[in-house]
């Protein structure tokens, strides 16, 4: 765990982060740009779905990020609780709004895809319901974190909530396999490999990477901001006692 504790130092982290951020930003813009180009212009029209399939290039990566962010939060929350690691705790706080945003996008773009395809904005099948629960978990985390006068208490309490809610993640992943309802089963991350055509797979993967770089960049920015906020609180506290 020495690696973890090397980065626990705020000043060292901020220096490192400022060096990495421009590169991550560039990678994000490159993948986003090329992903959008292929998604909107150069990729084929699905013979069944027509142009509607282009929604997939936002919906699927957003859904992947919704799960990815929550998993990252759970790992960081566990680290922060077990090793009392301050930076891991800040990482959880920084990630939450990003995960919530992606979950929101996944839900809404899913509705926009569902209406023309299957005639309905929403259906209460296992996957949609559990993704909605995921959205509530993100919001619940942010609300719980903020609900205490003592920030340390808020941090620890909400970290436990993240871990408790993690049971939802396997449910989301496997719900389309366990229950045969409206949402389609997995076609990319499968044991036998993707069933999707490579012309569609490429913009999909490009957008997936773009969203990952987006997450990394925004998270680094938010961590730096929270480290500054922590320092401000400490200085104010010292001011008050002097």
């Amino acid at each position: 765990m020495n690696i973890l504790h090397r980065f626990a130092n705020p000043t060292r982290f901020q220096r490192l982060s400022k060096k990495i951020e421009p590169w991550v930003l560039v990678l994000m813009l490159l993948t986003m740009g090329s992903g959008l180009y292929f998604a909107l212009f150069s990729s084929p029209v699905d013979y069944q779905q027509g142009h509607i399939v282009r929604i997939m290039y936002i919906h699927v990566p957003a859904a992947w990020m919704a799960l990815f962010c929550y998993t990252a939060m759970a790992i960081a929350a566990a680290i922060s609780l077990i090793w009392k690691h301050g930076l891991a705790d800040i990482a959880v706080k920084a990630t939450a709004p990003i995960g919530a945003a992606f979950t929101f996008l996944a839900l809404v773009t899913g509705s926009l895809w569902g209406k023309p395809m299957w005639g309905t904005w929403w259906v209460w099948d296992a996957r949609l319901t559990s993704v909605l629960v995921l959205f509530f978990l993100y919001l619940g985390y942010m609300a719980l974190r903020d609900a205490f006068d003592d920030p340390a208490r808020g941090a620890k309490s909400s970290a436990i909530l993240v871990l408790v809610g993690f049971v939802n993640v396997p449910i989301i992943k496997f719900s389309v396999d366990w229950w045969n309802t409206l949402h389609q089963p997995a076609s990319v991350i499968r044991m036998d490999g993707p069933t999707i055509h490579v012309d569609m797979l490429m913009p999909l993967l490009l957008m997936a990477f773009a969203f990952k770089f987006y997450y990394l960049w925004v998270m680094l920015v938010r961590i730096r901001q929270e480290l500054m906020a922590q320092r401000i609180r400490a200085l104010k506290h010292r001011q008050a006692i002097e």
Partner: protein
Amino acid sequence: MSGLSVILRREIRLALRHSTDSFMVVGFFVIAVVLFPFGVGPESNMLARIGPGVIWVAALLAAMLSMERLFQTDYEDGSLELLVLSPVPMELTVCAKVFVHWLTTGVPLILTAPLLALMMNVPFEAWPVMLASLALGTPVLSLIGAIGAALALGARRGGVLLSLLVLPLLIPVLIFAVGAIDAHLMGGGAKANLLLLGGVLLGALALAPWASAAALRQAVAS
């Protein structure tokens, strides 16, 4: 084991002293269900159709109302700190508190349900499944509710926050419980849903004491 029985007896004593809490929970349960015929109209077929769901949602909300006081008084007067420090593992203490909470909240709900099923025109043949779903489900409400109560202990607007945290986690309970009743009424078996509900109960029994104890230790340490 003697430490645990002391704690258990204390909880029962406290619960008996505050017996009005149980009446309030049942009162809310009844009023919430009674509102529906006024809200959606008294047409008996429709009431029968939505009855199981309405009863279950009302049970959920009534249970949430009572969750806040699970740890609150002990937290405020310092007993919680003593409980954390006692030789009895906190997880067992939580189990004792949750069990007594279920006796004073869940059981009254189960006993009141037939009256409400009558008011909502739920067919008699569905009653055994309904009671079974409540018997399996209400402990889960107390268990998962305990996690929320422990997490939100001492927070601003703790009661509302607790409900917001816990209700999404209880959606599977609602789905399986009402699913069992509906499946039975439609001729299929309630078994699958009831088994899933039982599985959720076992999962809650494993998860809730551990998570609540961890949260309570955090609350006391601050």
